[in-house]
């Protein structure tokens, strides 16, 4: 097998999650029309995550007559679909709507080309065989942005020296005086391995414009297609997903027994009337069981919503199209962390089965100034717990106007719809309700707080802190004022407690409690 990267097209929306949030829609469901617009021209695309589509150019390019016409065709189709998705949303949403299309040999070069394409709003086509020249001038910082395309640092690498993220890698490379991929490619592979451990090999390959993982030389294991045919058409969505779960476990176990993991999986769902939904799923780190099940769920939802199959499902088929050596995910022999992860996931699944998936949740970073909405709680079955990466720990630094550290340990959703935060009364020394005017000046100093008919004396306060959110969007605009209060329970033991009160539309609510 020749060690040459496939020529790919990368369509990338770097700010897709922000755009979806601005539109008030789920990242996946909003992305689906874009995927379908591309599928209209290119039958089998690889969907990695909301915001990224990749596909090999070979077939489609020949059909359309070259890479440049193909890229232009896809660009027009995506732009049209995007316009339909955004609709009449406010201008502000449009700032996140930039996308780029890059064509090159190898995924990294194509992803960097897509980034360049964003600025010119025209596709960037890197000539065949010129990917390493193109990469030579690109900054190594691109690694951080292309993590979805090339996979995490530790993927398939058991001993990743002292680097755990691309930020570490980039900072280390820059301290070594290697600013461009050309500088890295000029080094010997052995030196890179000496410095970066097993990741050094991947780095060397990426810098030279090759695919990260070398092609497999070992023979592929037999019987890799997992398929289930139903005797009677299945109408229930959950039943299909459960079957896919079963198949995915069988598939990943089978591959793991051969020391492999699939990076591309082809999923085919067929209805009784012969309607088919097929899609390729790509995950640079390899698709685990949960990732496959999630992909099937997404595909099934999109199929039901957009194509409305006329009968139940009769067949589900998973076939791994590309596998790589799985070196990094072996459980330690005598228990240890990996074992604990597995036990926890099993317990989570069991509880989710009994009490419903929404009763077990995991936090996911969302950002914002409202302490209750900074993290959202995602159903445990909607995330890949095996490969969970939660940002937020350091990202929160970027939010000006968020509640300063130390953070409150109990937070209540103060939006009027949720009704999650109790209404309270904040009074001044003369027992009149405290008012904050349009210029954020308080009518008096706060003196008392009433929570559930219990009176607290205000000992100290900080604020008022004005928070204006989404002022550009009438439907979601919020004008609130925050007050951090130190209160003492009247009559009982002299315990001082801290809380945050929020004023919105002349109603004070308890927003947070330092428990």
């Amino acid at each position, binding site marked *: 097998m020749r060690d040459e990267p496939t020529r790919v097209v990368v369509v990338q929306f770097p700010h897709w999650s922000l755009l979806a949030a601005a539109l008030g829609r789920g990242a996946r469901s909003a992305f689906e029309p874009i995927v379908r617009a591309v599928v209209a021209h290119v039958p089998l695309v690889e969907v990695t995550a909301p915001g990224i589509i990749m596909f090999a150019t070979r077939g489609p390019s020949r059909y359309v007559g070259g890479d440049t016409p193909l890229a232009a065709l896809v660009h027009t189709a995506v732009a049209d679909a995007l316009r339909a998705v955004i609709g009449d949303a406010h201008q502000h949403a449009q700032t996140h709507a930039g996308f780029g299309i890059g064509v090159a040999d190898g995924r990294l070069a194509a992803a960097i080309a897509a980034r360049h394409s964003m600025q010119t709003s025209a596709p960037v086509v890197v000539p065949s065989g010129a990917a390493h020249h193109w990469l030579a001038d690109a900054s190594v910082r691109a690694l951080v942005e292309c993590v979805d395309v090339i996979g995490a640092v530790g993927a398939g690498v058991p001993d990743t020296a002292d680097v755990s993220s691309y930020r570490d890698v980039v900072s280390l490379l820059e301290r070594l005086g290697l600013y461009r991929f050309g500088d890295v490619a000029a080094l010997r592979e052995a030196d890179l391995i000496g410095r970066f451990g097993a990741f050094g090999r991947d780095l060397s390959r990426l810098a030279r414009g090759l695919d990260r993982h070398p092609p497999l030389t070992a023979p592929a294991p037999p019987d890799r297609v997992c398929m289930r045919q139903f005797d009677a058409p299945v109408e229930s969505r959950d039943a299909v997903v459960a079957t896919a779960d079963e198949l995915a476990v069988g598939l990943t176990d089978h591959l793991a027994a051969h020391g492999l993991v699939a990076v591309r999986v082809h999923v085919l769902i067929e209805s009784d009337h012969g309607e088919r939904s097929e899609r390729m799923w790509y995950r640079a780190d390899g698709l685990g069981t949960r990732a496959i099940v999630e992909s099937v769920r997404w595909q099934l939802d999109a199929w039901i919503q957009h194509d409305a199959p006329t009968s139940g499902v009769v067949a589900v088929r998973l076939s791994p199209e590309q596998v790589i050596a799985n070196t990094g995910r072996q459980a330690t022999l005598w228990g240890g962390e990996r074992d604990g992860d597995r036990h926890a996931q099993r317990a*989570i699944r069991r509880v989710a089965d009994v009490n419903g998936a929404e009763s077990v949740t995991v936090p996911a970073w969302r950002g914002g100034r409202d302490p209750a909405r900074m993290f959202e709680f995602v159903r445990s079955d909607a995330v890949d717990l095996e490969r969970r990466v939660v940002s937020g720990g350091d990202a929160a630094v970027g939010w000006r106007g968020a509640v300063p*550290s130390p953070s409150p340990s109990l937070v209540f959703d103060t939006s009027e719809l949720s009704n999650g935060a109790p209404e309270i009364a904040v009074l001044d020394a003369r027992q009149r309700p405290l008012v904050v005017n349009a210029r954020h000046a308080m009518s008096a100093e706060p003196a008392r707080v009433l929570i559930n008919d219990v009176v607290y004396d205000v000992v100290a306060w*900080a604020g008022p802190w004005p928070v204006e959110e989404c002022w550009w969007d009438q439907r979601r605009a919020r004008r609130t004022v925050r007050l951090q209060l130190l209160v003492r329970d009247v009559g009982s033991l002299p*315990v001082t407690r801290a809380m945050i009160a929020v004023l919105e539309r002349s109603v004070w609510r308890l927003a947070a409690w330092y428990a």
Partner: protein
Amino acid sequence: MGRTPVRYGVGVATDLRSHLGTPVVRAPLPIAPSFTPLFADGGLVRGRTVACTGDAALSTALALAASATRLGSWLAVIGVPQLGVGAAIEAGVAIERIVLAQPPRASREWVATVAALVEGFDVLIVAPPTSLSAHDARRLQTRVAARQSVLIVVHLPPPLAPHTRLAPHAPQVFGADLDVRADTVAWSGIEQGGSHITQRMVHVRVSGRRCASPREATIDLSCATNQRVS
């Protein structure tokens, strides 16, 4: 005739233990250095129940669980849907190993759910429902002891529940091995209108039946670990 006195107890106990098979004693779960002097065992002994009370109960519970999660243990927070994740991160909890569960409030179902979670989690922070019976609580503790997890029971201070006011002293259904009382003694940084809370000093007192003599200390909870969100 010099008869050697029989020392009752030692041999019998040893025989019994070898007969029944000693449970594998696993090392206590690590805790943050600022809390180590308070715990005679140098960590959270597996299989035990710790009750956290006082106005800083939840923050203290998170701080106690933090070190273990960073070394690979999973943490379940049960019955606290309003958990401030920012506070958990600041306490040093590894956020990729925290899971929140909201089991049904009925005593029997609640215990069944938590018992299922005990199987997979090393540390569980639970805010028990008022309906929980002492019998069900004991059953859960037995399971925790068998699975060698650590159960941290948090009694959230009023007015936590938005519409039902809890009794100031909720009945202790759990027979805790350790009682951790955490009361804030000083908030600094906040004044009459200016600045904001920058530091929280908490007086922590550890007592209970597994604690020979109560230990206490005043801890700066806002920097119990060096993780800061902003």
